[in-house]
């Protein structure tokens, strides 16, 4: 297994003394779509921004195809396409202007590929960015990232501000593009149900630590829900009906959904940080 994205003891502390990442170790293999899920302030954005070269690690290291994104930024960026949390388009420029700009900024930018994606979605290329809906702006950001033809795509919560229909359309386009192009994709989100259908792998991040890293299929197959407390339970949390349920490894009272797997690990992180405190 060749890792395209790596983190070794990666820690990041911001100026106010807040640790966003607490020394994580992670290797992401090539291919497929990986969901990076976790609550707000779990460190998802910080992790992605470290790989893009926007954040310098306080400790440890990060690598993109074996390249240090801080010291070898140019070479590392050549392998990356990035979609930021909120679409950061130039208000005064049209969609086509953005594609022109991308051609100037990135040698080898595939304008035709990006245009094709936008045309399929019926996004008017002559329209000003400020006149596009949130969903359309996210699609333009994705088209720009896809146009780079980079082997790795990093998407930093692009779904957060979209309505359910726009979210579904975005994921559909992303899945198609990734299946066609074969780019390794890391999609961060705090909405588990959105990524469940699209992603092959799952990373659960909480309080700056990797809590779970597995394939989606394996994560679901290897966990279950117990309706009573067990010594080997990972954590307890509230079910939608208010009752208390426990996430366990192996057999339980019923199979766990992906949402429950994620919730269980997030609850375990909360419990351990409370105990530590």
């Amino acid at each position: 297994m060749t890792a395209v994205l790596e983190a070794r003891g990666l820690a990041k502390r911001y100026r106010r003394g807040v640790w966003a990442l607490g020394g994580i170790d992670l290797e992401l293999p090539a291919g497929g779509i990986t969901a990076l899920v976790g609550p707000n302030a779990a460190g998802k954005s910080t992790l992605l921004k470290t790989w893009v070269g926007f954040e310098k690690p306080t400790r440890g290291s990060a690598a993109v195809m074996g390249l240090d994104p801080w010291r070898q930024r140019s070479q590392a960026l050549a392998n990356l396409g990035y979609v930021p949390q909120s679409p950061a388009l130039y208000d005064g420029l049209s969609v086509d202007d953005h594609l022109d700009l991308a051609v100037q900024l990135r040698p080898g930018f595939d304008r035709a590929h990006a245009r094709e994606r936008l045309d399929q979605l019926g996004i008017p290329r002559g329209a000003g960015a400020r006149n596009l809906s949130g969903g359309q702006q996210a699609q333009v950001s994705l088209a720009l990232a896809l146009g780079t033809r980079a082997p790795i795509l990093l998407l930093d919560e692009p779904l957060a501000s979209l309505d359910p229909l726009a979210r579904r359309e975005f994921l559909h386009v992303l899945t198609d593009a990734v299946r066609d192009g074969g780019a390794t994709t890391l999609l961060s989100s705090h909405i588990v149900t959105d990524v469940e259908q699209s992603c092959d792998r799952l990373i659960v991040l909480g309080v700056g630590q990797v809590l779970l890293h597995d394939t989606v299929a394996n994560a679901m197959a290897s966990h279950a829900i117990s309706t009573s407390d067990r010594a080997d339970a990972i954590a307890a949390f509230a079910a939608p009906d208010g009752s208390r349920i426990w996430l366990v490894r192996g057999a339980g009272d019923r199979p766990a959904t992906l949402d429950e797997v994620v919730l269980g690990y997030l609850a375990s992180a909360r419990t351990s940080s409370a105990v530590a405190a």
Partner: protein
Amino acid sequence: MTAALTWGRLGFRQQRWELILVALGVAATAIAMLWFASQLNGLRAASPGCVPPAAAEFGSCEAALNAYSQIEGLADNMLLLSFGAPFGIGVLLGAPLIAREIDAGTAQLAWSIGRSRVSWLLRRIAFIALFVVVALGVLAVTSEILAAALAPERNLGSDFAWFGRRGWLIVARGLGALMLGMLVGALIGRVLPAILAAALVMALVFTGLSFAQDRWQEGLTETHRMNYSEAGSYLDSGALVINTGLELASGEVVTWSELNERGLEVSYVDEQGRLFASEQDMQDGNLLGYDVEFAIPGARYAGVVAAVGAASVGVGLLALGLTAVVVGRRRPV
């Protein structure tokens, strides 16, 4: 060509209102300067015996002289605008250049698609820098035309009159100010605070440069004995007088403040510019020294302008280099 259009379009769209404001301000100032120059030239042509005032015959020239002096005063004030314009434009166009990209989050897009932030920075600034050169170039030319109309009898190519308020020094200062403003904007990353901070930094840096320029110019001065009995008592009419002082009888040259520090006083000056400590000394011919000026000859005007302009551009290039470092290391939001 396509690349230039793309970056030009981005530069214009990002700073549309500032660019329009600067273009209108420069156009209005340039038109006003040309109008004042034509008025001054017109008055001179219409009343050759009265204007300029030195040629006036008393009594018959009152109306022409009044009109001339009124326009001359306003024209002189117009040249103050060309002194302040480079700094104002530097703040207005330089500070938001990078700050707006960071503020609006668009730096994330540019810095993740582009592989080199330095290359992005250089292309990003090119259009605005070109605009500043053209806009201030217009002011440089029109300010020279106005100065020539104010003093047609002087050769302004070797004359320190309106030094820093005309000619290409305006453009050089504008480029320096633009890049300094850009550095402040890149550091702060918020448009309005960057504009305010850039104004403050600009005042501090260019005041510091002005002090350094004064010290440097002192080294260029020539000492010239004043003679009040002659019409041309100064080194030359285009000279830049930096200081005045005394040449003591011993041959030592001192400034007035140095003389005071020594407890010496000058009580009498005769028409030849000779100085005496007391009336008795003057009667006895007991000479203290000569009244002198320390001035840079007008012939050195072009050299001084080139050096001061180079210093301004040098500060700008230093600021550009620091901006590249800041842009290379900072977060895009």
